[in-house]
């Protein structure tokens, strides 16, 4: 059970970390923005609190130190510097590490962690204000706020408060978050250790709180524990009196004499307000209240289920339509058409839900560019256009690695050093533009840099030297750039710490190919390079060509098809040794009847010419029925080892056709041949 909660916590914390990173990047551009600082502080605060609750103790402690620093920043005691931002970025990485592994056990790592914490603490290394003997802890205040009020909050938890999982200390934290607070704790009721019941609470508190928030904000802190503690909140004075010597004396006296603070007595003291600054303070926003729920978290399996149900509805709707038209009943046809309209809208909506904005990933790229450029002493602007473009979550999952690789390439090899850029007459600051937009049923993503570019001649020469192309063949510029994607083109000469770990653009092409996307490159020497990805909107819907082999229907994805030829009976003797000569071309053919172990057939057939790793291969089928847009569904567990069929698709009339995985089919065929 607890594991489940922990997992949930990690998931939520990753969101918090994500938020933190985003805010930090913003802060880097506008170091004085109070709202961003507040956002950072809040994210840290939730990490700290949650961490302690779910047993991430190191995380909690670590974040606590970080939070202290940002508390100072927030109160204007510390200003935001580049050092601080870099340190915080490192700290975020550390937090991610905690979330991955939990508490640190390795002694070496522990040592490093302590060094890190010390570094954080150095930011707040002015004389520390600890708890002194009479149990008073306090926040230092430097400014007084004329709109604020000071309250006395008396909290007396019932002894059973802990049994509900409430940690009263969090309540104190929450009070601290509202403003400045002085906490006096009463521990007189705590019994001797042998009589101590660890599940009961014996401590009570008086909190003197200075805040600009109204009294009901304070009450809200206790909203969940109202029945589990005696609570009294009363206003003592306007303005901030926490730093007044009279109050300190008063508290000291009260503590020494063992008396509790009484609001009557405190109110009775006249707090002269002449010291209070008259400058109007910036009004703090009530962040919590304004946080509207703009999105809800839903398990992705539920979305899949929804999409499934909608596809089924679409299928049945098609049957209904057919039936209505055949029946000739005008009213039925009318109804069926109305349902069809609704079904279409429902389908579009359901598919839209399963899309997620590309934005979530972009953060990582922004961070990558920032870190890499610092490391390489380059100056780079990373500009994002179209971050709100949405893609199927499965596509986004496949996209991250290739994009990381591409952007790394830009930073590492594309953008030149600042002095080199000045020599070329460019701005010393390089630019990488990430651009995404819709084009028809596709999404186009471009990564554009204004770096040194690629000289096509260099590529051509390199490809010739590697024996990838023939010296005498003339190639267009586009064809030359396509050579970059051939496996074996990337060299290990250029292995650097950052990109080119022996992985080249051929891997990018393959990865993008897996999600049925296309990659292309264009470049102008000294002007820059553009890498373009063309991606389908969703993986589950494909455009397919419906064909038959024997009495089974198959769908071949249109994206891999080049041409379709009819194959008359008299032409079938043109096939010799597995190769056909057609229209002046020779290419190998594979008979699908052979692959699917069907009987031989002598009638008219068709050849579907498909692309396979730069080669053309013909697939022989019986009939070509037509082009359809279909939803690909996975086979169940019993058929998961199926090699050449990637899934099944339900047609409009409810029948099922098999979706062919062309690459695996060809691969499978050749492997089988080798074994024979």
């Amino acid at each position, binding site marked *: 059970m607890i594991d489940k909660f922990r997992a949930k916590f990690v998931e939520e914390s990753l969101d918090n970390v994500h938020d933190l990173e985003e805010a930090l990047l913003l802060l880097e551009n506008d170091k004085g923005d109070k709202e961003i600082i507040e956002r950072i502080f809040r994210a840290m605060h939730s990490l700290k609190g949650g961490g302690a609750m779910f047993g991430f103790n190191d995380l909690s402690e670590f974040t606590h130190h970080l939070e202290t620093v940002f508390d100072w920043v927030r109160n204007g005691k510390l200003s935001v510097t580049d050092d601080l931002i870099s340190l915080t970025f490192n700290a975020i990485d550390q937090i991610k590490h905690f979330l991955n592994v939990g508490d640190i056990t390795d002694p070496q790592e522990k040592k490093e962690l302590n060094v890190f914490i010390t570094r954080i603490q150095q930011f707040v290394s002015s004389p520390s204000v600890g708890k002194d003997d009479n149990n008073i802890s306090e926040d230092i205040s430097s400014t007084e706020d004329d709109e604020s009020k000071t309250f006395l909050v008396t909290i007396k938890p019932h002894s059973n408060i802990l049994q509900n999982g409430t940690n009263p200390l969090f309540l104190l934290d929450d009070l601290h978050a509202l403003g400045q607070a002085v906490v006096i704790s009463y521990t007189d009721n705590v019994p001797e250790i042998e009589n101590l019941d660890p599940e009961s609470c014996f401590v009570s508190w008086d909190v003197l709180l200075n805040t600009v928030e109204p009294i009901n904000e304070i009450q809200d802190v206790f909203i969940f524990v109202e029945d589990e503690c005696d609570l009294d909140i009363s206003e003592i004075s306007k303005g901030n009196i926490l730093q007044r010597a009279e109050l300190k004396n008063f508290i000291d006296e009260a503590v020494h004499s063992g008396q509790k603070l009484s609001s009557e007595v405190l109110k009775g003291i006249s707090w002269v307000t002449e010291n209070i600054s008259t400058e109007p303070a910036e009004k703090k926003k009530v962040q919590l209240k304004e946080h509207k729920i703009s999105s809800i978290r839903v398990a992705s399996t539920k979305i899949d289920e929804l999409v*499934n*149900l909608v*596809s*089924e*509805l679409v*299928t049945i709707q098609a049957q209904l339509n057919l039936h209505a038209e055949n029946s000739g009943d005008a009213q039925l046809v009318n109804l069926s058409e109305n349902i069809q309209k609704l079904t279409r809208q429902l389908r579009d909506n359901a598919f839209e839900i399963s899309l997620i904005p590309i934005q979530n990933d972009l953060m990582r790229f922004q961070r990558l560019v920032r870190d890499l450029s610092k490391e390489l002493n380059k100056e780079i602007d990373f500009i994002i256009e179209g971050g709100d473009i949405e893609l199927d979550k499965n596509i986004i999952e496949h996209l991250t690695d290739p994009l990381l690789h591409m952007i790394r390439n830009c930073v590492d090899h594309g953008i030149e050093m600042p002095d080199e850029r000045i020599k070329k007459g460019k701005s010393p600051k390089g630019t990488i533009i990430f651009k995404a937009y819709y084009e028809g049923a596709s999404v186009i993503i471009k990564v554009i840099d204004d770096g040194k570019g690629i000289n096509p001649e260099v590529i051509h020469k390199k490809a010739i030297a590697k024996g990838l192309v023939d010296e005498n063949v003339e190639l267009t510029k586009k064809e030359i750039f396509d050579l970059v994607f051939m496996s074996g083109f990337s060299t290990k000469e250029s292995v650097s710490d950052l990109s080119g770990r022996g992985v080249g653009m051929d891997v990018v092409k393959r990865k993008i190919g897996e999600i049925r996307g296309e990659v292309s490159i264009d470049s102008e020497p000294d002007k820059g390079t553009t890498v373009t990805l063309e991606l389908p909107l969703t993986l589950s819907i494909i455009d397919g060509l419906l064909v038959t082999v024997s*009495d*089974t*229907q198959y769908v071949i994805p249109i994206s891999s098809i080049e041409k379709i030829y009819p194959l008359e009976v008299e032409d079938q003797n043109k096939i010799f040794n597995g190769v056909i000569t057609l229209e002046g071309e020779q290419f190998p053919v594979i008979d699908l009847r052979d*692959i*699917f*172990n*069907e009987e031989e057939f002598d009638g008219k057939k068709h050849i579907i010419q498909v692309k396979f790793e730069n080669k053309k291969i013909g697939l022989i089928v019986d009939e070509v029925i037509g082009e359809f847009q279909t939803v690909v*569904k*996975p*086979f*169940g*567990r*019993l*058929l998961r*080892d*199926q*090699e*050449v*069929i990637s*899934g*099944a698709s*339900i047609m409009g009339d*409810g*029948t*099922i*056709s*098999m979706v062919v995985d062309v690459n695996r089919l060809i691969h499978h065929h050749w492997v089988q041949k080798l074994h024979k």
Partner: protein
Amino acid sequence: MEGDFITLISFNLGDQVYAFDSLQVRNILPYEEGNVAKVPNTKDFILGVINLHGNIVPVTDLRIIMKIADWKNSKDTSIIVVSPEDKLESQFGIVVDLVKEVFEVENDRIMPPSFQKGIGLIESFEGTVQEKDEFVHMIDLMHVINQIESKNV
């Protein structure tokens, strides 16, 4: 434990009655050959896949798995759709001659299997129950899955 019972679904294969745990049954459909789409390159006991509420569900024939001689399809021939481990992706259909009934049986009424040998690909039985003058042989679904998966390569 005494007094505890399980719920079984019983069906006919040839002239014998078999049963398995009914909690894993999701659906019972009449078997119509036209609704089952053949999947190429599979073993003979995999009949193909059906469209069940928009999901693709593989269908196996228990009569072929148990190597029952001369069976015929009739209007009683049915597909029992089961979902072991309660996962959508592990759903599959089992073709049987006739679905009889669902009944509860107290654990202490389950006797050791009377069949000492396996039948076809089914190597062992879970137990035997006497229900209304008939002997019902209990089959473990997970065993069926394991057998299919090991033979399906």
